[in-house]
């Protein structure tokens, strides 16, 4: 690749991806140890998408994500400890242990979940962007969803509304080729997801979701377009999930060879190669990053372990608001 590499920024991006990778490897281990229960959907292999997109957002922007959102939450800047504690079900978790892995929320970073109804977050993103437009705020709402969501009515309804009302939404399709265990070719008559933008007169593009720099470039273009007030934007990032759909998936629907082929395009190694080829990065740099990330993950686990259980008497708190005026 010929592009100039900002070493500091690239190393930041690498650190983020490594953090997600090691955090999730640890999560899988803790799942096996029964520290984490429920569903656990790992993002491993797809890190470049969240990390590339978050780099172009400001703190005022909003993020809407799916049930496979540890990567987005970490890349958005939520604390690893609060996320891990949430998965432990501890009250120090970002949602007091009410949400778990699939429902991470954080008002401070404008992180609106954590939605486990496939496609359900898209109308929400439209509404957040509508509020921004009506209040004359120049903000972007980045809405992550998978290829499976493209078959849902909510996808089409939200695309139409956002384009009709020219709302500042970045629709970010993480196309990992499988809706749970069913390949896109079995579910979509037209598998060109980016191309679906045209049906709604919406600008759209395709990016290599295994290359964080490519994702960031494409997201930058998209976000600049949106901030200029030119309307919403659909960005499809082709990526691949290295791990099973969830901890219960026996992966009958794809071959080991296919997985191995994609692992050769591991986004972490792709970036390391970019850096090394530029002569900007040595093994010692990587080792230092790994140590740093390992310490952060270890601290997150310690935080979760030390966490406490919300008293069961609090069960009905927050069914409705405690402050009675809106």
């Amino acid at each position, binding site marked *: 690749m010929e592009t100039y590499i900002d070493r500091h920024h690239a190393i930041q991006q690498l650190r983020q991806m490594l953090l997600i990778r090691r955090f999730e490897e640890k999560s899988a281990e803790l799942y096996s140890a029964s520290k984490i229960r429920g569903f656990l959907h790992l993002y491993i292999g797809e890190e470049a998408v969240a990390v590339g997109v978050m780099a172009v957002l400001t703190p005022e922007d909003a993020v809407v994500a799916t049930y496979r959102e540890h990567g987005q939450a970490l890349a958005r800047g939520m604390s690893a400890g609060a996320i891990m504690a949430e998965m432990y079900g501890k009250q120090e978790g970002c949602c*007091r242990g009410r949400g778990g892995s699939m429902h991470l929320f954080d008002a401070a970073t404008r992180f609106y*979940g954590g939605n486990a109804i496939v496609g359900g977050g898209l*109308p929400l993103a439209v509404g957040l962007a*509508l509020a921004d437009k*009506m*209040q004359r705020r120049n903000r972007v709402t980045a809405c992550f969803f998978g290829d499976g969501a493209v078959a849902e009515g909510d996808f089409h309804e939200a695309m139409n509304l956002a384009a009709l009302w020219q709302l500042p939404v970045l629709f970010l399709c993480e196309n990992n080729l499988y809706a749970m265990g069913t390949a896109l070719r079995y579910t979509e008559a037209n598998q060109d997801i980016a191309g679906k933008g045209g049906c709604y007169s919406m600008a759209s593009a395709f990016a290599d979701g295994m290359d964080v720099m490519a994702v960031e470039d494409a997201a930058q273009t998209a976000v600049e377009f949106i901030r200029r007030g030119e309307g919403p934007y659909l960005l499809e990032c082709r990526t691949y999930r290295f791990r099973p759909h969830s901890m219960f998936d026996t992966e009958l629907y794809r071959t080991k060879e296919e997985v191995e082929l994609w692992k050769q395009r591991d986004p972490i190694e792709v970036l390391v190669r970019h850096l090394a080829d530029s002569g900007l990065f040595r093994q010692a740099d990587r080792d230092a990053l790994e140590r740093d990330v390992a310490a952060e993950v270890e601290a997150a686990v310690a935080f979760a372990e030390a966490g406490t259980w919300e008293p069961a008497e609090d069960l009905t708190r927050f069914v*409705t608001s405690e402050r*009675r005026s809106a």
Partner: protein
Amino acid sequence: MSEQTATKATTYREAVKAALCEALHKDERVFLMGEDVGHYGGCYAVSKGLLAEFGPERIRDTPLCESGFVGAGIGAALGGMRPIVEVMTVNFSLLALDQILNTAATLLHMSGGQFNVPLVIRMATGAGKQLAAQHAHSLEGWIAHIPGIRVLSPATVEDARGMLWTALQDPDPVLIFENNTLYNMEGMLSENAGPVDIDSARVRRPGRDITLITYSASLFKCLDAAEALAREGIEAEVIDLRSLRPLDDAAYLASIARTHRVLIVDEGWRSGSLSAEISARIMEQGFYDLDLPVERLCSAEVPIPYARHMEEAALPQVDSIMATVKRMVSHE
């Protein structure tokens, strides 16, 4: 109401419209969104003229996509607006039930108290206009099963006028069900009518012999029945629930403690209905006040049919209310 207060005849439709106007004038965060609310003037002509007054940003026509625009209402509420989302009819709202239940009602608890959703959803409900089996059900009792939301059912012009503003002050989602047979109903409304409480039930007619618990359009059937029964010496007390979630248990239990008999009139289907819930609560909290078992008059358990005589047969009516009351009162 004091005798000095001027009143004027107002339709339910005009009362809802006046409430919308008030909200749009008083709070710039408020906007109305839904199918045909703007250029068409509202499916039931409730929002006629509002587009010209408030413009297309705040009287926002939507495509036909209930899930999409209800979800967008949730997002806009999270983003600091105060949306009023109009769904044409309760049957259509099922297309948005995912957003209502899985998001609007769930977000606050699931996020550990971080994200409340100050959203108002209005919709038409109820049978009586020969609209048949996909436009005429009374599903509000079913929706009232969902924790995390309020469900209101204004029957009077005063409540049609006053509940909306109070609902907009609530930090959580409020669903307001307007029975479509009421829009043309005229009532006397105080010229200074304004917000009303949305927590309590009301005794609409006092009586000593039996309590009729009802809401929405059935209120008027119960009042008509009570009027006719009074001529026969039976005094029925009529309770208008007003709020279906939460229920004002104290109000109807206090009435039953006086009358010792209770009939619940509910246009929802009988099985697993709001009337079943109220009956259970009476068993739990008021059993020893009862002289005889709780009874219920509900819709027949059929899809609402088109033909007038069949539709009428499917619903509780003044005659069936009177007959049931007489049988219960004579049972000693």
